[in-house]
């Protein structure tokens, strides 16, 4: 815990307002992410973990509101006080996000190389040629074989795992200090998931980025993260290093979740 605090979230409240009334999806969540750290935000569907991610990126669903008392500080800046232009500049450059569904997060009618290059062009790169070259280099870094040729392909020509690598390339293009990964492997097959997890681990070591890993899967948490925060019904019920979470959970809900995780007898 010697690394400086990169992201500090205090009393985050996210409310969804609809005709049926207001629902508090996130109900007073506080946590910090240190530079270079890989932290998991774990919970079951509907616990509010994705709402936290969207609030951090300030990409809100219609009807969603961040509570007045909430504070999000990133790298010393008050995120909730930034205007939209400053936030746009931050997104993709300093904080980026990897989504769950690589199929829908990519533009189907744009070459994947161009989509990765676009990130560089948005954040100051002037030359299209240079942006393209950087995109190819980035695709290569994410383990896409023959990246120079693949960059010319469209999303539907790539496998699910390959598409997820493209999304990772887009997220890491600007070497952000923080990557928010929202269930990035949940839509993938287990063997592909294993490869993507290995890739994320390698890239994290290489770049020193911090990762906020949002997932429902404790197996993935154990593989990748050093600390885990367990969420339930809009609140964080436990926040501890993974070894404590897995071997001496303090909260009964954490223990219950862990008991339910399917595991191979051979791995016990």
């Amino acid at each position, binding site marked *: 815990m010697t690394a400086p605090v990169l992201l500090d979230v205090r009393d985050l409240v996210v409310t969804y307002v609809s005709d049926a009334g207001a629902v508090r999806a996130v109900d007073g969540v506080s946590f910090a992410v240190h530079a270079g750290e890989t932290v998991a935000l774990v919970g*079951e*569907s509907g616990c509010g973990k994705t709402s936290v991610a969207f609030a951090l990126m300030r990409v809100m669903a219609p009807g969603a509101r961040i509570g007045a008392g909430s504070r999000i500080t990133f790298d010393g800046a008050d995120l909730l006080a930034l205007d939209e232009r400053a936030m746009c500049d931050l997104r993709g450059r300093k904080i980026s996000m990897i989504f769950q569904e690589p199929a829908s997060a990519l533009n189907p009618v744009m070459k994947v190389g161009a989509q990765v290059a676009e990130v560089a062009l948005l954040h100051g790169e002037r030359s299209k040629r240079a942006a393209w070259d950087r995109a190819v280099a980035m695709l290569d870094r994410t383990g896409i074989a023959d990246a120079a040729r693949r960059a010319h392909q469209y999303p539907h020509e790539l496998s*699910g795992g390959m598409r997820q690598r493209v999304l990772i390339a887009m997220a890491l293009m600007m070497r952000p200090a923080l990557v928010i990964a929202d269930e990035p492997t949940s839509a993938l*097959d*287990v*063997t*592909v*998931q*294993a490869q993507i*997890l*290995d890739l994320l681990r390698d890239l994290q070591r290489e770049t020193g980025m911090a990762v906020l890993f949002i997932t*429902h*899967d*404790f*197996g*993935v*948490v*154990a*593989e990748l993260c050093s600390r885990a925060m367990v969420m339930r019904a809009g609140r964080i019920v436990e926040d501890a290093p*993974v*070894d404590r979470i*897995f*071997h001496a959970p303090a909260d009964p809900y954490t223990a*219950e*979740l*862990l*008991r*339910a*995780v*399917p*595991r*191979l*007898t*051979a*791995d016990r």
Partner: protein
Amino acid sequence: MSDTLISVSHLTHEFAARRTMFGAPQATIRAVNDVSFDIARGETLALVGESGCGKTTTGRAILRLIEPTSGHVTFDGIDVLTLQREPLRRLRRRMQVVFQDPHTSLDPRMRVGRTVREGIEAHELAEGAEADARVARTLEEVGLRASDAAKLPHEFSGGQRQRIAIARALAVEPEFVVLDEAVSALDVTVQAQVLALLMQLQRDRGLTYLFIAHNLAVVERIATRVAVMYRGRIVEIAAAAALYSSPQHGYTKALLSAVPVPDPRVKKKRIVWDGN
């Protein structure tokens, strides 16, 4: 084997990948390629593989929800694939299915009671108050309340909806149920509960399951035998204990090694399968 309930032999199913302008298939993909296995009465055969391996197509071909290109399926000595429409419909009382996604497998406009009752009426197993009683009994058996019959699917959580889908399958008192990724879409705590329910129901009713799954860890407890599918073929089929303790095929090994271990102290060696 005298107690074989289902026998699948040389099952093959081809999809048209490309068609000519007149609709004739020009190129085909073998989604299921020469698949054979037997399922004994009362056992659970787990059919495991990754997306696109043909496991779901196999399950649907056995139930004849799709017409396979070639091969044979017998159910209790009956040749399923050559049955005419009406005998096939009657046979469906004995073989049922539970799908993966309980949000799409229930008609959003139909009350739960009518959904569960549909099969009872189709097979004239009961009518009037007797049918109501049977619906109520089945709902209670899967852990719901009899009063839930009057509700619509959107009033339930994912796990509860999956219980409704199970009730629909059980209401006609089948002998065989295809569980097509029936717990994959559920949260882990709910998944464990639904798995326990399925095992309980199997003991109570002597059911035979074909459990289709993509995660070997999920089916370990429930499976009697496991068949591993890869690109349309069964690459390994063995008793569960043997398959988990000493997998023979390279792909099975890779699949087992890819299951993440929910324990940060354990670092598992990853085995990569290169496709040969």
